[in-house]
């Protein structure tokens, strides 16, 4: 991270301007109080103040990096004291050495220089603290601005994912195809049409009334996906074969609502839509004391799949899991030439 004073020409000019004022003031003070000629006073002032000006620029780096790692008050204070002693000591030593070598022929000045060391140290400490304070302010201001930007980004992201998940809740093609099947059934098998309307209504009610962020039980989720699969079975007949294994003690475990249905829909899409024969969709739920694990597997034919990569649906589920459980590795995909398999783990607290 570059020093903010050096990063823009304007701030550097301001910085130099302040030091020139200090140089003038310093010259005036020692000239009048020390009764020495202007050249000597000016040299003294320029050497000592510009030296501090240069050290001041360098101070940014230890401050920036120390702050980035450490936020504790006590260590900040200690860092500050140590930094102050080192910087001021170094400055005093160097100033003294330079001025002594410049004015070695002038014993009166050397005496003045020796006597002035305590107040020089005092001024050095003040300079140091002022510069440090400015740096802290800059860092604080920057962090604040960064946080604001981050927050705005985060809000936009949440909004976007909310919209996306709303859109992905009900696939319009599924809905229209189902309605078409109902339309057909009313002519040939009215009782079955009625059954399908009821199933579809229940499915729509569950989907639209559930908040995604809420946890629900596996039992309720399974009821919902069975409604969904029953509807698809009416559409696809023998082409859809469903196998379910649910560990008995898993049924009351918690998981986010409406997360399984999109996965099953995916399985139907890649298994059944693209298969002329039957396609088996398997769902296996197992659990232990710390987690519920669900495997959804469908047969597929990779040759006939479009190469789209991970769809919006899967990405959406991944990000929901990350937000809810703060873990990245809960959804895993395994593909081989025969099967497409998704494993999803829901930690139980």
């Amino acid at each position, binding site marked *: 991270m570059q020093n903010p004073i050096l990063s823009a020409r304007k701030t550097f000019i301001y910085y130099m301007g302040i030091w020139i004022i200090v140089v003038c003031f310093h010259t005036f003070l020692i000239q009048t109080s020390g009764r020495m000629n202007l050249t000597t006073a000016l040299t003294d002032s320029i050497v000592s103040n510009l030296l501090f000006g240069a050290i001041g620029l360098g101070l940014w780096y230890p401050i920036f990096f120390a702050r980035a790692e450490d936020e504790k008050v006590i260590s900040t204070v200690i860092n500050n004291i140590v930094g102050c002693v080192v910087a001021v000591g170094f400055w005093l030593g160097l100033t003294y050495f330079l001025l002594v070598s410049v004015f070695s022929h002038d014993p009166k000045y050397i005496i003045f220089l020796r006597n002035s060391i305590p107040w020089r140290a005092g001024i050095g400490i003040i300079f140091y603290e002022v510069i440090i304070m400015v740096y802290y302010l800059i860092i604080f201001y920057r962090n604040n601005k960064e946080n604001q930007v981050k927050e705005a980004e985060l809000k936009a992201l949440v909004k976007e994912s909310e919209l996306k998940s709303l859109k992905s809740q009900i696939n*319009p*093609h599924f809905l*229209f*195809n189902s*309605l*078409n*099947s*109902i*339309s*057909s*059934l009313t*002519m*040939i098998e009215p009782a079955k049409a009625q059954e399908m309307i009821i199933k579809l209504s229940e499915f729509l009610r569950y989907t639209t009334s559930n908040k995604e962020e809420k946890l629900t039980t596996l039992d309720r989720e399974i009821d919902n996906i069975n409604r969904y699969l029953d509807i698809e079975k*009416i*559409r*696809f*007949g023998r*082409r859809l074969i469903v196998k379910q294994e649910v560990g008995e003690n898993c049924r009351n475990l918690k998981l986010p609502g409406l997360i399984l249905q999109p996965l099953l829909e995916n399985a139907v899409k890649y298994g059944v*839509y*693209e*298969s*002329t024969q039957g396609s088996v969709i398997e769902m296996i739920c197992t659990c232990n004391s710390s987690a519920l694990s669900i495997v959804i597997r469908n047969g597929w*034919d990779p*040759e*006939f799949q*479009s*190469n*789209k990569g991970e769809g919006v649906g899967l990405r959406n589920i991944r990000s929901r899991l990350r937000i809810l459980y703060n873990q990245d590795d809960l959804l895993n995909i395994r593909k081989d030439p025969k099967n497409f398999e998704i494993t999803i783990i829901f930690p139980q607290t």
Partner: protein
Amino acid sequence: MENIRALIIDDEELARELIKNYLKNQPGIQVIGECENGFEGARSIAELKPDLVFLDIQMPKLNGFEMLELTDDPPEIIFITAHNEFAIRAFEMNAVDYLLKPYSQDRLLAAVEKVREKIRTGGRNDQKISQLVQQPLTEKLERIVVKTGTKIKVIPVDKIVYLEAQDDYIMVYTDDSKHLKQGTMKFYEDHLDESKFIRVHRSYIVRIDQVVQLEPYAKDNYILKLKNGNSLKVSRNGLKNLKEKFNF
């Protein structure tokens, strides 16, 4: 009234039942067969030579468009689908009508009337496409199908290296094969994803990530080197397209 012989191609049994029920006892039209996927459909069209096909788009293995591309001398087509985003492409393939599921019996019969009209007037389709289509085409091609002898092969667009125009045909080059296919450069220029493909010449469309470098060749002439070692001529328009794409 002339009798229309119709074939139904849809992967859902209930969807086929609906069409049959709607057409039952209607004079002048007769359902002569039904198929549940594109492969069967292509075969049945060749065998039965129907006048009209009711065609679903979303079907296993071979979708309705792909099936149609493989059909020589296709009959009249009425698309029946739940997807509204394919309408423009459907009319580009000279479909007579495009029905969105679910639809009424009257709507289907009106579509059949249009077919009858078209057959009677000798194949002139005066239907204004713009009136029928509200939705612009959003779907880009993800794969293309080619026929070698009797075998049908599906090529994902990501496997294509480049396309070359050859009269009324297109030669599709992949890493390890080439296939001749009916079609126009215009069609592929419009329907391939423009973030992946670029037209560099009247006769060439290239997959962008296959491009290695552009070399000057003669005065104002350039050739494009591809990953597989091929070199293609670049036209002036092609150069302009490349400049826009790669910002140089």
